[in-house]
């Protein structure tokens, strides 16, 4: 193994340049991302396309978090924020049954430390007739609701979470929004 000598000063400058470039990517971009606001207002009376043909009427007064919203042709996610309450909708292909979809969502929820499913599950139905299941969960200093719907090879997962008091104040608007979930047909 042989290595030729290289002048230390240019090597130091070049090494610092590599270090700075790596730091810019690893820390600079996230810092720039944090410096820019993520939330955008949305019209409550205009349907928002979540993805894969699924749309929803956003709750009145909600803001859309564009960093957690990714509409695609075959799937999609949307995150609405109302004060301290987060209202997330996830749509993706799924070939199982409704109980299996509900079980999967419960597993995702309880994967978080301190998250527990609470109470009993009940049937849910949207204004367009999509049948689903809804339930509740608790987390440290937060409470949450979830719903899951199955239609045409797609699962629609809805989760709502926030501090108890904040949640109570907006739950009616969010429930109304969830009932407005619709799937464009045919996909």
């Amino acid at each position, binding site marked *: *193994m042989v290595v030729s000598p290289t002048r230390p000063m240019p090597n130091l400058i070049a*090494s610092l340049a590599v270090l700075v470039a790596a730091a810019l990517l690893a820390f600079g971009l996230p810092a720039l991302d944090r410096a820019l606001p993520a939330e955008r207002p949305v019209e409550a009376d205009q349907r928002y396309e979540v993805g894969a043909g699924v749309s929803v009427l956003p709750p009145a007064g909600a803001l859309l978090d564009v960093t957690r919203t990714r509409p695609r042709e075959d799937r999609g996610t949307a995150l609405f924020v109302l004060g301290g309450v987060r209202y997330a909708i996830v749509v993706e292909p799924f070939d199982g049954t409704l109980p299996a979809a509900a079980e999967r969502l419960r597993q995702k929820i309880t994967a978080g430390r301190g998250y527990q499913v609470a109470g009993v599950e009940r049937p849910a139905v949207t204004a367009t007739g999509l049948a689903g299941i809804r339930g509740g969960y608790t987390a440290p200093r937060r409470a949450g609701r979830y719903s899951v719907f199955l239609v045409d090879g797609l699962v629609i997962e809805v989760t709502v979470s926030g501090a108890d008091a904040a949640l109570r104040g907006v739950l009616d608007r969010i429930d109304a929004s969830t009932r407005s979930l619709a799937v464009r047909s045919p996909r």
Partner: protein
Amino acid sequence: MTVPARPPDAPEPVTARWPDAARPLRSRSARTAPVRPTPAVLGWDGSLLLPGFWMVSLLLVVGGVRIATLLRDGFAAYPVATSVALLLFGLYAVPFWLFVGALDFLEREPPVLLACAFAWGALVATTVSMSGSPAGHNLLAKLGSPELAANWGSAIAGATVEEIAKTLGIVAIALVARSQVNSVLDGVVYGALVGLGFQVVEGVVYSLSAVALAGRGDAVDPVVATFFLRGFLAGPWSHTLFSALAGAGVGYLVVRTDRSAPSRVGTAALALAGAWLCHFLWNSPLLGDGLGYGGLGVLAGLLAKGVPPLLMILWLVRVARAREADFYLGQLAALGDPRVVTDAELAVLGRAGLRAEARRYAHGRSGLRGGRAVRRLQRAQARLAVALSRVVPPGTDPRQLRAAVRSDADAGRWYREALAQRARLLRLRHPEALAPHQRRTTTRRWATGGLVTVAVFVVWLAIRALGGA
């Protein structure tokens, strides 16, 4: 000792490209891609004095801790799936590593530097990308729209952050051991290994995400599906390929000191832009649904996006390898000693297929010992060529070359080894390491083509199994 006439049953050998010692002066390597042989002057302690060494060490430790934490969490949540992902993607790396390592037969790279390149891709570039890439996606969503981020985020933000992070690794290798990056081909080799390291860890991370998303506990099938998707469908034209192209640019930047700084930096930037463009096209939603007609159309779309960059980079590797062979074999040719290397052997030595054919031919005529002696002779010839190039410039008079063989320990050692293997071949009545059956090499090439076709068919089946239509 002289090399006796070829055996009567030996077909006409391949014609050598070095009829006289003056030719190397006008070799292609001298004109377009010079090689800067590693000077034999310092040991590892030279690198320890360089700031670049400590910078690389620091980043490798930081990246190592980050990836180890990620794997620890993976093992805690999904022990079986994590083990299977590591095993599958670990095994997946082996043939790639062997292929990339074999590119540089004449002047092998130090294993520790190859491992360093792999580790940069696996630990540093992935760590940097795990922070930078999501931020890039978010910036696209904020400055553009969520639709833009969803459809083009991977193509724009992913390709930009990942290609830069990987290319920094090739630059880092040049900073740690600049003299080891002594040809464009070396840049390709280090770049490919940085990309391979990235590809392996990225595959493991994607597998664990798929397991978590599936929400079925410690399930293995999301890992297998990810392995098919990222290993078979995306593997042949993925990070290894992109970074090999960027590495060629860094190799050019380091080696072509005869060119102006703007020209070298511009070429390196162009190579990085090429790597980015390949990555961008691959990640873009263009032809995302293929060309219609279900799984077959998806396969056609996949090939349309992946094959042109693959062919372009393979061509680049072929050219770079030929240039390097020109340089080193020119030194052997100038030595003018048929006991060390004959004209026909010179033509064989620069091409992997012909080297293998020469070993097979010897094995067929003289058994295992014949094949082994040819392999050792080829290795001695290659090491002697490199050793000579380190102590004398190209175009040196044959007498000076012979003097160098006597005075330089490394050159002397490989010279004696070449003579010893020649003597062994003479005893085996197989005096010359020829590859006379070029047709066989061509047949093997066709057989490889057939295997590739079968692989494409397997990929198509995988697409169908994954619901590609």
